[in-house]
């Protein structure tokens, strides 16, 4: 299964209430946290909830989620991997 990064970006924007940003403004490789979009640990948890709601993937531990939340690309790969297994 291949995940549309554009759709993923739209989901991120809706989840985090960042309507002021267009999906195309988010670089696939740019860091989501810290200097990138300026997201924080609570946003990461919102993304965990999004994974469950939109992709039926349950993350029980942030240690597991952390490598996946580096960028849009790593998150898309994480979803593809989980969906494949």
């Amino acid at each position, binding site marked *: 299964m291949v995940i549309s990064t554009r759709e993923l970006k739209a989901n991120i924007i809706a989840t985090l209430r960042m309507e002021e940003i267009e999906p195309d403004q988010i670089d696939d490789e740019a860091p989501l946290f810290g200097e990138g979009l300026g997201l924080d*640990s609570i946003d990461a948890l919102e993304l965990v*909830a999004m994974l469950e709601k939109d992709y039926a993937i349950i993350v029980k531990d942030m240690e597991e989620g952390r490598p996946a939340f580096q960028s849009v690309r790593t998150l898309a790969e994480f979803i593809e991997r989980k969906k494949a297994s």
Partner: protein
Amino acid sequence: MASRSPVVTGLGIVAAPGHGVEAVWTALAGGAGGLKPLGLFPSPRHGPVPVGEIQEDLNDPALHLRGSRSDRLAWLAVRQAIASASLSLSDHRDRAGMLLGSSVGGSYDSERFLEILLKRRCMRALPTRYHECNSAVSLIAANLGLLGPCMTIATACSSGALALATAAEMIQSGEADIMLAGGADSLSRMTWGGFHALLLVDAEGCRPFDAQRNGMSLGEGGAVLVLEAEETARARGANILARLGGWGASCDAHHATAPHREGRGALAAMRSALARAGLEPGAMDYLNAHGTGTRDNDLAEARALRSLFGERVPPFSSTKHFFGHALAASGALEAVICIEALRRQLLPPNLGFTSMDPAIGLEPVTAMRSASLTHVMSNSFGFGGNNAVLIFSHPDAAVAPREAPHMPVAVRGVGVIGPGTRGLKEIEPPLPAGEVASVDCGPLAGAGELTMNQRRRLSRLMQMVVLAARRSVTADATGGDPRLAVAIGTGMGCLGDAGIFLENLIEKEEREPMPSRFPASVHNAPAAQLAIDRGAQGLNAAPTTADISFECALWLAMRQLVTGEADQALAGAVDELNKYLLSIGQRWGFWNETTQPGEGAVVAALGRVSEKDAPCLARVSAVRLGRFERPFDAAREARWMASATDLGEGGVLYTGAGGWPELDPCYAAVADMLGRKSGSSWEHRTYKSMCGEYHSASSFGFAQAVECVRAERRRAMLYTLSPRGFKALCCLQP
């Protein structure tokens, strides 16, 4: 020895490991923790994860308890504390008050209301009767006939410790001779779902400071101390159990939930408590850590301990595995442990610890053992980076907290987010549909000043406070201030966010949690977000005491300035209209035909009068808190006012008349009595026709009073009564 030094003369405790000091200590000595699988309510998603749940049936009529589950826990602890202090309150009721910490108030009971509403589509409003965090203080102070200062503090997990610190401050400053103080919180779906949404719960039970620790365990309980001025305790021949000689508070001003990595605020609060007690770090013989068992908290706390104590960290332990994390009760439960440790000269063990974490590099006390204890410290940290630290000492120890006399403070500026439009607010389904005429703030003008992250993450209530604060200070007062204190009162707090979070939790059976809604639902979220916006690292408090919430905030801020703990302070209050409040409020008669629901935020910037060049719109010469009884005695109220200020010059009396109809005759009688007693003219003015009726509306009255003093150069008094029996007086002069 300073005769107003706060001393402890009574203890009451009810928690999962046992009821009463002896039972709790026996369990602790035996290493028998209170964690058991959750049984209070079903959890479809998480199952029976271990919690510190009280097994006894608190609805048993033989216990003669009423109120919410939290209120019942508070009552049990209060009854024990009074008995153990051999205290006859009727001899002291004029000078005795009550101060509890609460984080969820009656949430457990209100959740039943919401569940019935969502599943059966019918309104059963009764369980929400005791929803407010001030419910326990309101019920118990009335039962005991206390007339001294009463307050509830809601700063999440540091509430209990901050309540004890504030009660000590009230005794030290002469506000009261005796305070019943501590905290109570029951388990609730709200906090259960919330901490799970934040992935902070260890499904195997918490393991504070352990290498394998993986989160916290929730708990519940109540603990109350009888605190007295030493002279009062000596005069009545009371047995002094310990001294409360040091207390300090701070704010990380960093993040809504995560602690500052290096434990910056924790360190500041510990230093502040030591300075208040006049003690060096090396004098601490034991430390009861906050130690929740989450990876970040324990690491940050350990770093703060290293920064303060260097290589000589005193023996320390967390009792969170023993009690569970009882949130607002925690600081008070742990205070009881500290006092018993001093009395018995024994170190309490850190249950749940087996292996040292190399990143922490510190090993807590693992088994109860003898030690020579003179001074012990207790840490409590909460959401919003809200920190409170207490130091208890042996009765024979020479410790006298620094004294600070009353002095006026200057109002430098007032920011108001007030009624913009006289709009119609609709109550949305599934709550009963209908329209209520309201005095609301409309769309928030100025929201464009906020950053994108503030706009998307701060609820409307929080934005109101941040914007009001920005309007209260002059441009040169910049952020990043370690000496800036913040106190924001609220009656209902973030009820809107809490309601949405719970609706989602119940409807979806704990699936699709809303992690950012939970930290936004705590009562201290507005104060914490304001601290982050201004970089304010001083005290950060959220009093929630119904109609006098603003005056409580003002009192707290004033004391920080007077004691030199802060150089500047922001004191204010906020409440908002939302569908839950509108529907429940109608049921409970918060509003009638002549009053309309309102909302607003007011923040006053305060400083010391001695700073000559700073602007001063008005001086606050006194803030007094108390309770009144029925039948209402206006002459008694006039005497109370005369003890706070010189009534002879006359001036303007601002009251909350035009709100609760039953209070209007009381206000009128006091206005009349003032003229007769003082022999001068006191003009009676009201403000609720402008701002509408809401819990913290007196903050709007304060803004009016400040403007009166500035523009008319007259004295003003703000006098507020609450249907819950609380009262407050604030005296202003040019």
